[in-house]
């Protein structure tokens, strides 16, 4: 079948009796261009208009590098934590029904729906030393709010539902019979989980991780309240962009944004290639 389609001109549809392709496709592309593509192109055009010296000067300062490093490191760690916790929660939700599960399942989506600023002030109040949880943590000598740990908490809050919602359907689709087959063949529960269940849900875990990471790196509202925003210590890259904009240093803001976008794109691309390699080696038989 695909051989027949391979000769298509890009965006020219396969003949269909259903009307409206020209109109809907045209409107979509126009609107997409006006709202998304042209503005994003402006960002890169602006960055390109900076000379190399200007660009490096804007991004190579210790403060900028520290902010970028903080954003990436906390996002990666938070995405890892989200992956572990989210995978675990998804497993429990699917495999261990308990009274009120539907309600808990709905609660998982709160970080999707709750505005980030609201999440930000709520997490800060909760994890500040005067807050319900921050007080407990302070007693064991841990300061959460206004430190990088606070950033991590906010990013896990944001990333968790991405992992749960990616992994949950895969666990639901797991075939009970494969696990029973493993048991009949003498595998222990742990061997079954490690060798049968985990490899099956691993791709979904990776996808959940990348989604949580991509969201976390650019996250602003839920982080800035809890972060403390101390330059060089707890100042994230998106905040630095805002600060530069408030100083009307558009060139610097643009340069940081472009570096941030490109770095996260490169990271996601690397994961994607890794995933494809894994899938490809599977099909070709090692």
């Amino acid at each position: 079948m695909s051989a027949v389609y391979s000769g298509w001109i890009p965006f020219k549809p396969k003949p269909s009796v259903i009307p409206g392709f020209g109109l809907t496709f045209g409107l979509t592309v126009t609107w997409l261009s006006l709202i998304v593509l042209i503005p994003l192109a402006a960002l890169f055009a602006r960055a390109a208009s900076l000379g190399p010296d200007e660009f490096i000067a804007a991004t190579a300062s210790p403060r900028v590098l520290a902010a970028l490093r903080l954003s990436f490191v906390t996002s990666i760690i938070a995405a890892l934590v989200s992956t572990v916790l989210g995978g675990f929660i998804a497993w429990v939700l699917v495999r261990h029904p308990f009274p009120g599960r539907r309600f808990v399942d709905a609660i998982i989506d709160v970080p999707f729906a709750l505005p980030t600023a609201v999440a930000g002030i709520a997490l800060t109040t909760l994890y500040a030393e005067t807050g319900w949880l921050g007080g407990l943590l302070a007693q064991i000598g841990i300061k959460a709010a206004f430190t990088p740990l606070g950033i991590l908490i906010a990013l896990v809050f944001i990333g968790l539902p991405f992992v749960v919602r990616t992994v949950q359907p895969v666990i639901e689709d797991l075939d009970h019979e494969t696990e029973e087959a493993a048991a009949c063949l003498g595998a222990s529960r742990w061997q079954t989980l490690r060798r049968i269940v985990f490899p099956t849900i691993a791709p979904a875990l990776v996808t959940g991780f990348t989604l949580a990471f991509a969201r976390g790196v650019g996250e602003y509202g839920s982080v800035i309240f809890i972060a403390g925003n101390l330059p060089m210590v707890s100042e994230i890259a998106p905040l630095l962009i805002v600060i530069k904009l408030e100083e009307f240093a558009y060139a610097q803001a643009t340069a940081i944004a472009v570096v941030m976008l490109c770095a996260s794109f490169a990271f996601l691309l690397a994961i994607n290639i890794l995933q494809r390699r894994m899938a490809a080696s599977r099909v070709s038989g090692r």
Partner: protein
Amino acid sequence: MSSANIVLSVPQRPRIVSTGAALRWTLIAVALGVIGLLIAMPLASVFAEAFRQGADAYFGALGDPMAIAAMKLTLIVAAIAVPLNLVFGVVGAWAIAKFEFRGKSFLIALIDLPFSVSPVVSGLVFVLLFGMQGWFGPFLIEHGVQIIFAVPGLVLATIFVTFPFVARELIPLMQQQGTQEEEAAVALGASGWQIFRRVTLPNIKWALLYGVLLCNARAMGEFGAVSVVSGHIRGATNTIPLHVEILYNEYNFVAAFAVASLLALLALLTLAAKAVLDWRLSVSPKPGERKT
């Protein structure tokens, strides 16, 4: 042949490869603990903080003229951004789901793009276009049109960040539903609009409603992008989330949480609507789904 003895539905067998009761409840407790600490408690604390000084303080904060101005502005922005994204979400989903063409996955990726761009960058791009030092900024300001630090900028940034929501909900559903019903309608002589109105729309209405609700929740709650383009002019360019930020930074916590509780309520309503819609979808089987 007699079939009186055939029992059609056998209850689901419990599985012996499941975990023991003690471990089971430990796992459930740990999962609930994580969800409680990370998600439920922050949500609960919004309302707890809002009512810390009683109902009078709460309603006083909501009745403040600046708060009311912020609510009005938020409603205006959402009232412009949501319908536009509704229309283009449906139009885009139609083009993508009902036709086969090369470059389709590329187009889907472009539609998804705003999801993967930092909200701050989403605001930044409009500043670069329409700001004082932007491409069109000086020209527009000369002609008395203000976009950045004014309502049009808020609207543009909101449309940008909520762009994918409706299309995202519709595309998978419409692809799954296929084109047979539309083709049948064509064969029966229906026009394009009639097909959409009478065949497609009834099939997608719940997903469309949920997409619109999500789009609206995000439009009203968006913070990073509007923060960049707003200029924070009280009573003029402050939406509810921006107003929350200002109150919070002024250490006016009760007022900040009171206003924030409105947005939290909106989020809860959106999730409740989702639960109802999920339930509806599970009650009426999707087309093409096998009955077992």
